[in-house]
């Protein structure tokens, strides 16, 4: 015999409704988390605008690619850095240099590393040299590459190649003083 609530709705219906609500909320939370990690395509101008939005913070912009082994090795340290220094005014932005056809690899990489900071994908097309020069004229195009901006929004440091957690920490600590 089925039990009914005062409103005439079966208990099993309530169960289904609660389960559906739970699934909906889980999907919303997951989508929000994904959105925070993958922030869309960006060109040099868009990236400069994204950095400018964080004025007042020390901003660490890291260029990486899924095919780049040292990028993959240093990325967890950036995730750790952002978690440790978020409250002290440090923002991290990731920029994937992968090609658009590699989007599944990008998503898999971000899902495995779970960064709490946004990651953009370099917009396809155009000459890569223009993008590289716009980010930093001294950048030769090697990956990984990191640019650190001071609280005033000005470029303060460039880090070529793979860095250690201590390197990242040193770079931001100096600018937080």
């Amino acid at each position, binding site marked *: 015999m089925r039990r009914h609530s005062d409103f005439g709705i079966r208990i099993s219906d309530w169960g289904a409704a609660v389960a559906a609500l739970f699934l909906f909320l889980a999907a919303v939370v997951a989508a929000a988390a994904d959105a925070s990690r993958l922030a869309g395509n960006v060109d040099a101008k868009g990236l400069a605008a994204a950095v400018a939005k964080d004025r007042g913070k020390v901003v660490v912009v890291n260029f990486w*690619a899924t*095919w*780049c*082994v*040292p990028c993959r090795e240093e990325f967890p340290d950036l995730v750790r850095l952002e978690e440790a220094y978020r409250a002290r005014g440090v923002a991290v932005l990731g920029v994937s*240099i992968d*090609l658009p056809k590699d989007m599944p690899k990008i998503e898999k990489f971000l899902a495995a590393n779970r960064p709490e900071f946004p990651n953009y994908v370099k917009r396809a097309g155009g*000459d*890569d*040299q223009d993008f*590289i*020069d716009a980010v930093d004229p*001294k*950048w*030769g*195009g*090697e*990956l*990984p590459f990191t640019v650190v901006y001071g609280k005033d929004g000005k470029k303060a*440091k*460039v*880090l*070529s*190649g*793979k860095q250690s957690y201590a390197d990242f920490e040193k770079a931001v600590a100096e600018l937080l003083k």
Partner: protein
Amino acid sequence: MKVLRTLFALLALAVFAGPALADGPAIGTAAPAFEAKTLDGKPFSLADAEKTNSYVVLMFIATQCPYSNAYNDRMRDMAAAYAKKGILFVGINSNKTESIDEAAAHAKKHGFAFPVLKDPSNKVADLYDAKHTPEVYVIGKDGKLLYHGRIDDNSDDAAKVTSPDLKNALDALLAGQPVAKAETKAFGCSIKRV
């Protein structure tokens, strides 16, 4: 004691920090001379190569870098085509993570007929301040650097190249013309230094 500690810290900084982004040779200046060994142990001297060829193309390459590997066929074909015009292509593997045996197997697999050098202590990469693979340098008979940068503007698809920069540079030089775009850039894998 405190003074000593400070001095030691300063010394350590000077030794380990180094220049964040040093500069390699500028276009038109002397390309640093060096000697190294090919993968099969033969001696190689840049000075000798300059004397016996019209131009020398140094290519920093890798066995495991997808960006460098995307150019294996293009490097093989260009080296063969320009060898007939007196231009020597030379591969240089400066990655500490890639052994001589691995580099030799890679060269054989991809049909590299040009010499490939192993740069075990990054000596050559440091002289040129080469940052990534692939990265190329064109050197003239007088030892001057004439071109530095990428092979072309599309690593992903050779059929979609719109700016074959290395080819343009070599063709200009062979025609006795100045190189219009002597410095170019592309993404690549950073050289794994010792």
